[in-house]
């Protein structure tokens, strides 16, 4: 199976540790993962802000770059949902605008081959115990697009529960949005900040050291709020927890 990592532009630029963690984790599980250098951005920010036509070349590019792979794995629920849920919709809209089936046909092949990381682990590789060790108290925030668009369900939880040393504590109001929402975070900054502060307060109430999620853009917002409110809690991407091993911790 030819497996490609679609890291996302945000992770590539700001969170390379998440990318390294995915590579380390998949390699440990026997997957030979490739990172096609031509990859950039799925176009989600464009699409969701109302620039669908500007997002189209990025979607075409994605389909082209990842065409030769059997599986495309991404450590982002929202970028995964962009491909799986919104690429088909982009094709339909182009058709409705009288531009034919071209875009739909170009995008169709990558749609079913794109997996969010926890989906790939649980559904494709069939593992929940990835041999990780992480001696910390962790609370898990299910990010909205992973939760509602992709329907990740309890996959992240099952993976975390199998991590040795990890104590998982329930996050009150877990399924409420953190308030990031892409450009929403700056267009409606007051409401976004209020949602973020409530999320952080709920996270703090658990007594956990770490708030874990499967989306670094949400964690950028939550973590930035945590730092500003001086909570002492850390935001950590689930890939970094799953990649962590006893040797790495004790080394």
């Amino acid at each position, binding site marked *: 199976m030819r497996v490609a990592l679609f890291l996302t532009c945000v992770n590539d630029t700001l969170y390379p540790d998440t990318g390294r963690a995915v590579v380390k984790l998949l390699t440990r599980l026997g997957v030979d993962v490739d990172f096609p250098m031509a*990859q950039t951005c799925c*176009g989600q920010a464009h699409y969701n802000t109302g*620039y669908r036509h500007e997002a189209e*070349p990025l979607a075409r590019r994605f389909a082209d770059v990842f065409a030769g792979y059997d599986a495309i794995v991404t450590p982002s629920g929202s970028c995964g949902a962009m491909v799986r849920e919104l690429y088909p919709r982009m094709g339909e809209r182009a058709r409705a605008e009288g531009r034919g089936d071209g875009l739909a046909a170009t995008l169709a092949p990558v749609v079913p081959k794109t997996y969010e990381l926890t989906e790939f682990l649980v559904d494709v590789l069939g593992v929940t115990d990835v041999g990780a060790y992480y001696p910390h108290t962790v609370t898990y925030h299910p990010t*909205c697009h992973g939760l509602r668009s992709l329907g990740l369900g309890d996959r992240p939880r099952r993976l975390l529960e199998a991590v040795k040393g990890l104590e998982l504590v329930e996050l009150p109001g877990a399924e409420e949005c953190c308030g990031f929402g892409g450009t*929403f975070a700056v267009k*409606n900054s007051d409401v976004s*900040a209020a949602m973020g502060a409530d999320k952080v307060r709920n996270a703090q109430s658990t007594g956990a050291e770490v708030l874990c999620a499967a989306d670094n853009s949400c964690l950028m*917002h939550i973590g930035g709020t945590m730092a*500003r409110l001086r909570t002492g809690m850390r935001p950590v991407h689930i890939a970094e927890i799953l990649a962590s091993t006893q040797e790495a911790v004790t080394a």
Partner: protein
Amino acid sequence: MSGTFVGMPAFPEAAREAVGDETLRGNLRHATHTIRDKRARAVAELDDWAALREAGKRIKDHTLRHLDRYLVQVEEAVTAAGGTVHWAADADEANEIVARLVKETGESEVVKVKSMATQEIALNEALQAQGIRAYETDLAELIVQLGKDRPSHILVPAIHRNRGEIRDIFRSEMSEWGRPAPEDLTDTPAELAEAARLHLREKFLRAKVGISGANFVVAETGTLVVVESEGNGRMCLTLPETLISVVGIEKIVPRWQDLEVFLQTLPRSSTAERMNPYTSMWTGTGGGRNGEGDGPRTFHLVLLDNGRTDTLADEVGRQALRCIRCSACLNVCPVYERAGGHAYGSVYPGPIGAILSPQLRGTESEIDASLPYASSLCGACYEVCPVAIDIPEVLVHLRERVVQGGPAVRNGNRVVLKPAGGHAAERAAMRAAQWAFTHPGALRTGQRLASRTRRLHPRTLPGPGRAWSGSRDLPAVPAEPFRDWWQRTRGGRDGAK
């Protein structure tokens, strides 16, 4: 607080005030969380909820697809049952029709059943201008009217008020409108309800004209349906001699049997009840035409368009017309919970308002152009919607209309909308990002530049950047982007860290 939404500022500015109001935040958090949890339990009781939701969606879509036919069927059935049907293209027409009908009775006051359509067209204000006083009889609408306030929720228009505030409004304002509240009124629910009951009772018994909306109109029989909790609606629908109902054209269902779906999904979604306490159904003037039965002797149905046909012309946006006004999307929305209903600048607040108002009114005003952005696209609204309106999809579609313009229908005419102003910098940034993302070399140069200058990066941003850094620290830029690490170490195979 004024009684009108005209000239509202854009959503972010209106929301800022609400976010800073601790009392309001507390009222909203308590109320929305309570009803949200109860709704979840009420829905979970039904094994066939998904099927009911799908059925509701299909019935509504079918009706909207054949609305031309069903509207004529409604007119024929209502007329045959002794009612008179009027057609109103917009709010002004509807208001004129209603004012004329009231004047023809010789009356100068009316009692009202809670109705979104009459709120939408600002009927009370229009009647007042013609010397007719309209009394709201729904408890929450009464609170809003007495307080010279605006509704902030579809189902619970006074959700932004707590008990203490309601007592104060009753004590200071009831005497202006009729029977005063007792001097020693406390804020216990039973006392507040009793004060409202006594205040309203004299109006019910005196009124000769009632005005309502309708939750449903059954095309095959011409039957109107009002679903309510308090029984005040039943009073208004049965006691007066003349009944005038103002109903949006999207409220039609084809068959009586279709009600079996909505009378299950609406109460559970809105008040979390298995069945609402009062369901009133009437067909024309029933047996009362010759004075031998109960109920109004004269019945008028005003069918209201007011932007609905334009909305129906939009392939993506038309799903908003499925809405049965349950409010489940408001109660589950994290943005509504913080911003409150008034920030939406419309009688339709929350997620459904954010897609309905810019379609019914157009995207030209500042508030309407800002509403499609009043969402983090978390999708909780779509998840709870009993007619499966994909609100995030429509929000994004309307964002596109705001920033890119494009074809639309306004007042029945095909137009090409221009992009809205105020998005020039954003548009430039989006195009620049698109260019960088289609030129990976340029992207990489930018990433490296950011990495090399990272020690110089400020912790907070000036100007517009404060929208981020006012409440959140900026992420630290790493020493190298992932792609450089990948290339340098061949994906870690070289063992380098």
